[in-house]
């Protein structure tokens, strides 16, 4: 092996090591809450590897953390074009929710629920979207679905009780309240509705 080849191999190794260190730096920056630097490093890496969906998704996540929801949604859509992944859909739903785009958030969640009908995260996102529109009846329906799949999820049962009450379905609210009180007596909903639903 010639001396020139040895030097070339050494340079390649060093640049490879530097590349690995860069994504690590991005992780470290994120860990210390410096999202701007984490994003800048990822953008630099993405420039070198434009088709890499990992970088697109990471940039979307970092933009999302920075509160730049429109930009994050655009990147999640770019990520979807490269790879149809539930995380990208969830990212877009979160961006819609953050931007107060309740109808878009719900319709995208509903669309994705056709693929994953028992996904509690998607169900709760859809529930939030309709709750924010004060459609408590529909929100209660989403929470009912979550509880039917995960009966031990007392947080979502609490939200169900709340939406049942707000939508005027008092009898069912009282029934679910009693279950919640039995298994999760310290729940905030139990405390809040004590004088209202805790009656025969």
């Amino acid at each position, binding site marked *: 092996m010639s001396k020139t080849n040895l030097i070339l191999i050494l340079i390649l190794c060093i640049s490879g090591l530097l590349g690995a260190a860069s994504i690590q730096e991005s992780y470290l920056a994120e860990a*210390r809450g410096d999202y701007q630097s984490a994003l800048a490093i990822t953008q630099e890496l993405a420039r070198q590897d434009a088709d890499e969906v990992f970088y697109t998704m990471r940039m979307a996540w970092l933009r999302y*953390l920075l509160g730049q*929801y429109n930009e994050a949604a655009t990147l999640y859509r770019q990520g979807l074009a490269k790879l149809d992944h539930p995380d990208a859909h969830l990212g877009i739903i979160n961006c819609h929710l*953050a*931007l*107060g785009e309740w109808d878009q958030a719900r319709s995208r969640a509903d669309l994705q629920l056709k693929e994953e009908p028992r996904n509690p995260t998607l169900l709760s996102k859809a529930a939030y979207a309709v709750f924010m529109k004060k459609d408590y009846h529909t929100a209660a329906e989403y929470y009912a679905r979550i509880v039917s799949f995960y009966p031990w999820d007392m947080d979502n049962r609490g939200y169900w009780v709340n939406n049942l009450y707000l939508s005027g379905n008092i009898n069912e609210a009282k029934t679910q309240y009693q279950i919640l009180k039995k298994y999760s007596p310290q729940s905030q909903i139990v405390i809040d509705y004590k004088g209202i639903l805790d009656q025969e």
Partner: protein
Amino acid sequence: MKLIASLLLLFSMALLSAQTGASDLQSLRIAVAQNPVDATARINLAYQLMLTGNNSEALSHYETLLIQNNRNIPAMEGVLWALQTQGLYQESVDRAKAFLALSPATGSLHSYKAYGLSRLGLHLAARSAYSKAKRLSDDDSVQQSTKLGLAWEYLYLQDYASAKTQLSKLESRTDPHAGELLHDTELKIAVGAGTNYADLTSGNLNLAIRKAAFSAEANYDELMLDGARFRRSFGISAMWQNPVANLKVDSSILLGKDKRVYPANSYGMSLQPVFYLDKLQVKPSLSGHYGTYQRLDAQQADLGFELRSDRLSGSYSFSLLYLDKDSIDSDEREQVHSFSLGVKAYKQAWLKAYLMSGNTAWWTSPYGLVYDAFEANSSIYGLSLYSPIGKKMGFLLYSQIGTQNNETDISTALTLSYSI
């Protein structure tokens, strides 16, 4: 070695505490990311970001909260707080107006608006907004901050009696600086010179002192005729600002070459209550002057008012003058009307126009100037420009055209002042 170990321990503790603060912020950020509609988590995050100086990031979260719910009062307060922390006072006032259109009875929003207006130098509007905040809020901290805000606005408006009243309402000495500003002695010195571009030149020196609601002035004025000393006057005045009205007394001695007139004495007293109507300051006034000259006495009664907003001012004064002359059957009664209209030209610079109508001989103007002459103008048209120079200095340029029996004269005066 012991020292190095101690330093290492201190360094690691500092590192640990810094990481704890960052991780609190980090966990709030993750909570918001996981549930972007969790208003409580986002408010907490934005609040922590404000406390750590990340104002623009906090602002974006407050804005997001408003996108999600445009009636979120803590988010509105947060937006105004973040804008004002960044020094964007005009924007904060505009946003406060928009928020108040949605929630007109929220005292804290009026308070933020007031602070923004105050920083823009619009103290009457700020006073009005603080008053609304005080009236609407039953929150203790908002009450305290509005009382303090009001005290500051009265200090800016030089209404020391009202400032004192507001400061006395504060439960504790929340802002000692406001109290110091009220009670510290303030000294102002002014020098001026004038000319009528013909035979008359003048020079004057004025010293003013104020402590709390009491103030006093000493004035020396020298008039030169054809370059020779013609008349000089020494004057003193004292004013007490009290919650009912501003009470002012003054006296001056005039000495000069004209034996028909000098030596002479002049005395005056005025009473001027101060009212506020929304963004307006209203000052009605009642005053009287008495002058004793060698061949006549002058008795004068004035009724006037001043109206002021942050950008415009106006005044009117009506004077009844009785000249009791030594010559038999030569007493005279005169009426003088005095108007002024001012406009804020730029920042704190004011441009004012004046009109004085009537026989001004032996008349004391609302600005304290005695027209000690047998022949004086029957109409005076004046224009002045006042502007501060930096924080302590100021200049006043005044020019007037006087008319009498189809003759006109022009005069100009320049005064420079310095506050200590």
